[in-house]
């Protein structure tokens, strides 16, 4: 049981990242690969901060800020230098790897010895404590985002990814919108990375590799649930994204528990995402039939 509970907590740690990907992909229509770098960046800032005994009240804003800077860079490359969205993200992500390594000083820092967000105040089961903390943070984040996306500013944000021509013709500077959007989502991704580092007890320079894929997979699962329930409420969409992230982690936990080699985990992840992405199109069997 603890094994699956840990998978759920791990999922909850990744929810801010999933929400970030959902907002860039589905709301801004911007495939943001910066995620891989900003996720590690969050974990790195967290590790450096904790080992230097920076209080959490300063460290957490710092983590958000670091992610926001990464997003700003991508937005700048994309909107000012007119570089393709995918390429801008890849460029910033690649650059971030060196920055992360420089900040971290070595490739791995253990964090178990330091007081962090998950250090229990009361004497309870540590896993339960983590569950309560992450769940309440995620809930807070979803409430905040769902409010933001329903405001006038949020409507303009959503319209930017939906119909850029129209939004500009209504007097919105779409470049600024993308900048704010990417800063916001990468800040959330960085926060996710820091939660993960504290949860697993270490920061590793490679922990961000492929994180965007698991985020995408989670968003795809969420999309399927959203289609299933056919709801237009943005808050519910965000809640489903959170569910998607957790389901994704549970599936991974399940594959591990049935004894599949951990080295194959990334391969399985990408196969799993492929499956989710390809299932709705549903042309598999008709194309097979043509062969016979």
């Amino acid at each position, binding site marked *: 049981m603890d094994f699956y509970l840990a998978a759920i907590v791990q999922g909850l740690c990744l929810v801010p990242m999933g929400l970030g990907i959902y907002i860039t992909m589905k709301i801004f229509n911007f495939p943001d690969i910066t995620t891989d770098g900003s996720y590690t960046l969050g974990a790195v800032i967290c590790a450096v901060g904790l080992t230097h005994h920076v209080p959490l009240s300063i460290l957490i804003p710092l983590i958000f800020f670091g992610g926001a800077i990464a997003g700003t860079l991508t937005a700048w490359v994309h909107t000012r230098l007119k570089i393709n969205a995918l390429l801008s993200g890849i460029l910033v992500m690649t650059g971030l790897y060196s920055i992360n390594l420089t900040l971290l000083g070595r490739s791995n820092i253990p964090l178990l010895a330091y007081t962090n967000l998950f250090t229990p105040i009361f004497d309870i089961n540590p896993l339960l404590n983590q569950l309560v903390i992450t769940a309440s943070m995620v809930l807070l984040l979803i409430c905040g985002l769902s409010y933001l996306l329903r405001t*006038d500013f949020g409507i303009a944000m959503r319209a930017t990814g939906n*119909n850029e021509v129209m939004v500009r*013709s209504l*007097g919105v500077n779409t470049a600024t919108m993308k900048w704010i959007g990417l800063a916001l989502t990468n800040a959330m991704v960085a926060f996710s990375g820091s939660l993960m580092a504290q949860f697993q007890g270490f920061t590793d320079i490679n922990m961000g590799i492929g994180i965007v894929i698991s985020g995408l997979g989670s968003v795809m699962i969420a999309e399927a649930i959203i289609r299933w329930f056919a709801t237009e409420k943005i808050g519910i969409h965000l809640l489903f994204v959170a569910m998607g992230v957790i389901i994704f982690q549970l599936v991974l936990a399940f594959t591990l528990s049935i004894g599949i080699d951990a080295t194959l985990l990334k391969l399985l992840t990408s196969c799993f995402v492929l499956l989710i992405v390809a299932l709705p199109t549903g042309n598999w069997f008709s194309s097979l039939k043509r062969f016979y």
Partner: protein
Amino acid sequence: MLNIQQVTKTFFLNKPNEIKALDNLTLTINSGDFVVIVGANGSGKSTLQHVISGNLEADAGALTLDGQSIGNLPDYKRSKWIARVFQNPLQGTAPDLSIVDNFRLAALRGERKKVKIGTDQVFTHRVQEQVRLLGMGLEDKIHQPMGLLSGGQRQALTLLMTVMNDVKLLLLDEPTAALDPRSAKKVMELAHELIQKYRLTVLFITHNMKEALTYGDRLIQLANGRIKRDLTKREKDILKPQDLYEWFNED
């Protein structure tokens, strides 16, 4: 009101395929004018609208709107005064947003989009009353996504969205070209009604000769980036469709 002074726009400058889309064009549009613009493909009609709206920057010349120079402003800043309805009905609205959200954006044209919820009951009611005027039964569907509506409905709503606040100039770029005849008629009638009611200044591009004769109080023919004819309402009223067809066969 809108003053276009010797505006020139060239594409592919100094290349073999150089095109002078606007050639030293000067045009003054007075407040309350409903100007119809006709011309063959490539005569510069769309370029003219794009230069006015700011999607394209003119190579030379000056643009003033109510005495204010707007030639150097980006499109999203000009859209405070200039509203557009596009040829493609899908371009004027955001498909995944609800009707009421689309109207909210239109109502905030050129204003700051604040971090507060603006689609409250008062606003929803206002949109409902506006949409009811269309007689399309959409007033009960204002929380549905725009993408579920037909092209004609979306174009009608786009028009309605332009009058959610004071705009000085309305640019209509073949708004009915992608619609079936019945929807086209309905959209044009609505446009006419709104233009009269709100006393809008309009620049209306069309390839439909019947529309060109039915609507507007001034008719301009563009050819090779210049104004070839500029007819007042009186001159326009005595025109027949054949005359217009002959204009197009002249070159």
